């Protein structure tokens, strides 16, 4: 019985890890990991909204004072985002508020998030399907 409980707990933890890992994006050179939370849930097209980006270093430390640039578009349609989103505020705990996010088509989008922090620069590519 106890073994079963331990197994279920372990399995749940594993599952949580897998689910969490889905939402964590590693930069190209592996210097940063990024996760995001959209204030609009689920993300709908044609509605401007905010995101919060969370950035950690390779070793899992919270990244503060980063300079972040966000561009993006739809690779299949050869066009960019309909807005020019910008990180407007650095929040606590490695979090940053990203304003002006909007998508105007359903389909596959790709965001290019360039992070400059602690003298290091790396780029995260976030793919999302709407």
């Amino acid at each position, binding site marked *: 019985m106890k073994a079963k409980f331990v197994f279920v707990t372990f399995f749940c933890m594993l599952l949580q890890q897998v689910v969490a890992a889905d939402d964590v994006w590693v930069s190209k050179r592996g210097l940063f990991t990024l996760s995001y939370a959209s204030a609009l849930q689920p993300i709908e*097209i044609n509605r401007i909204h905010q995101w919060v980006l969370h950035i950690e270093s390779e070793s899992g430390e919270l990244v503060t004072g980063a300079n972040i640039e966000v561009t993006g578009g739809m690779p299949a349609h050869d066009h960019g985002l309909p807005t020019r989103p910008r990180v407007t505020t650095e929040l606590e705990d490695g979090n940053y508020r990203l*304003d002006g996010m909007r998508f105007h088509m359903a389909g596959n989008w790709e965001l290019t998030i360039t992070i400059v922090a602690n003298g290091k620069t790396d780029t995260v590519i976030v793919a999302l399907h709407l």
Partner: protein
Amino acid sequence: MKRFLLVLVIAGVAAGASWYFRPLLPEPWTDADIEILRSLWIGNLGPVPPDPSNAVADNPLAVEFGQRLFFDGRLSANGSISCSTCHQPVRRFTDGLQKGQAIGTSGRNTPSIIGSAYSPWLFWDGRRDSQWSQAIAPLEDVNEHATDRRQVIRVVAGDPTYSETYEQLFGELPDEADEAAVNAAFSNIGKAIAAFERLLLPTPSRFDDYVAAVIAGDVAAQQNLYTDDEIVGLQLFIGKANCTQCHNGPLLTNHEFHNTGVISFPGEVPDKGRVLGVREVQSNAFNCSGPYSDDRDRNCAELEYARTGPELIGAFRTPSLRNLENTAPFMHKGQIATLSAVLRHYNEAPLAMIGHNETKPLKLRDSELRQMEAFLHTLSAPIVTVEYVASDRGEKQQRQ
């Protein structure tokens, strides 16, 4: 024998051709299709979004005042051009012309204003960001109303009903020498017109009834509402014709700007479109972040995060596809005379004269284009008339 073979070959070719060119029959809707249909359904439109930049946006007195102003020819250089000269209710607030004809010839095709309360951008190039700031722009356009803000204020001041209503809504009319006060009064007049325009909304079309029947799984109702050609047209529209890339959401527009390779009239310089419109809206005194907005928080995300760049050269705002009936000719300068010609344009996707055509040739058959056209006609609904009655209790009633 030879003759028999020849007849057989001809018959075979004819049968093959008629099979190949047959109109396609509808496929059953998948769950994913139904989700897309639901996203286009008017039941998914939601209430008109608030306009915090306009303090009288939902004020019944302003609606009534705005309606009168909308139809008032005195707001023009020759005393006979009103908003409704080009935005004619019987033509779904368009005019049937390539370019608007007022005091002169307008620079572009007259767009409908039905449902414009939902759009973050107004005009073909989005050079204004609210209904009220849009409404005052044609008044001073030399080819449209060709009047000016002081003259407009004089018209209001000179009409006892107008001046009384104005003062009830906004306070005293300004001293003409006070420029900021004149601008504020001019914006107030736009805000009253916008309060009226906010009520010009699309009504449910046969398409919406059909989608409701699909969502409810009511097969008999579906069969009564749509022909096979209309169903296939809709399937193409949301499927391989890629129309919902831009014509999405319940208004069938993403309110964005795209270059779709619509060529200029011969001898006319290509119109740069949004790339100039975005510059204009960002510097316009009547924009969301300007001094005449009533939104104290200056909640202007669309304006603040508007993009610029070469992608917007020759790009124009995606128009709604609701109520296309009676709105020809189409495109930003009325370059394309009929709906079937519009579909042929997208089927071919010609090279853009300036910038880059985002669309790719659809390579659909003529029968498929006809089926899409049949579907597009189902997006028409009864005309929204413009009689709004502000009753004693201040309730607005909309007559159809």
